[in-house]
């Protein structure tokens, strides 16, 4: 019971692991390019939860928080670039179905 009520590092880690897996699954299953992007965001969030949790329970220093902020900011940048790429994709193929973008298929 103590492990249930006394929230510790492992609780966050397990949560993050599930989030991560869900994000990964999203990435593999969405055929919509933006859906894949959303999956990536989930994965990043899982990583962030880990970072903050370790920052809190682990070192007690701000390094985890700083890294999390970097991740958030870079996620914004990544979304911008990704959307620009999707727009190009859409302009070229008139769809955002990534399965249509398999011209280099072997």
């Amino acid at each position, binding site marked *: 019971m103590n492990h249930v009520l006394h929230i*510790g590092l492992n609780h966050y880690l397990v949560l993050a692991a599930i989030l991560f897996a869900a994000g990964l699954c999203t990435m593999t299953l969405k055929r919509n390019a933006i859906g894949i992007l*959303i999956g990536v965001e989930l994965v990043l969030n899982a990583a962030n939860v880990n970072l903050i949790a370790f*920052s809190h329970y682990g070192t007690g220093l*701000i390094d985890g928080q700083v890294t999390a902020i970097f991740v*958030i900011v870079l996620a914004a940048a990544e979304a911008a*670039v990704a959307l620009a790429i999707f727009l190009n994709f859409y302009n070229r193929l008139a769809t955002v179905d990534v399965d249509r973008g398999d011209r280099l298929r072997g």
Partner: protein
Amino acid sequence: MLEAILFYGFAAMALAGAFGVLLSRNIVRTAVWLLATLGAAAGLYFLLGAMFVGAIQLIVYAGGTLVLIIFGVMLTSKNPHMRFAPRRAEVAVAAVVCLALVGLLVWVLLHSTWYVGPIVQTRAQWAQTGVNEHPWAHDLQAVTQFLDANHVAIVDAKGVPCGPVTLAGLARAAWYELTVMPQGDQGDRRQPLHDADGKPMSGDQLLAELHALPPQDRAIDDAALESAIAALESPDAPARTVQQVAYACGDADLLTDADGDGTRNIGLGFLGVYLLPFEVISVLLLAVLIGAAYLARPRVPASGGTGGGR
């Protein structure tokens, strides 16, 4: 109790959002589910004392990135309800793989001993163990040298650390209270420092110990120490905690969220310890800005033909 309730609430919300993202077929709804996860994550950050990160998560992620994503959806879909279903085989494989992944991760997580904290050793430990035999000797040396660079050099002439006799070291040692952590135990590390009898040390004891140090071994001089003590002596503060001592002595540059000063430390960190990554990421952002603008620019036909540029 409250913490547990909040944690489970936010965790449930985050998981609901994640599975919503995974299962929903409509892309806009997917984005809304993502919003739930992002909000819950922000809540978790608040819960973990990372107020600033939580707020940034809300502003940048939920308010900026997500809007951008939805904006992208609006720009790229002719039919709002268009659905692309993956093949069944794919779904099956993905489900199996991801479940296996979750299983593996959780198993590994629960069977790991996380190294919770010992960046700085307690004074006693440091005195006992030769630093170089310590398993984390390398990190330890680097980090303490780095942390204390601005205070008093704690490395003697031969490059061997003298032990945490500086204010920084002592306060930090008190802060972390590190002994060997039994496997699987994540007890709150913020226990007060134990004194010789094994009883927790109070802030006053810590101050007394600081006073006892020879001045040249302290990071701050007597006057500064006195004023720090005076600052702590508000009428309705019954007992000084070691955290308060550490903060009052101005030596908490890299610590997180005590007394709400984590934000300030993040700011100091960005312009201090993490300046280089900060700058690198700034440059990267600039490059991304240009790159995104380049990618998204309208295509101009190469030459004056009407049908060009497709």
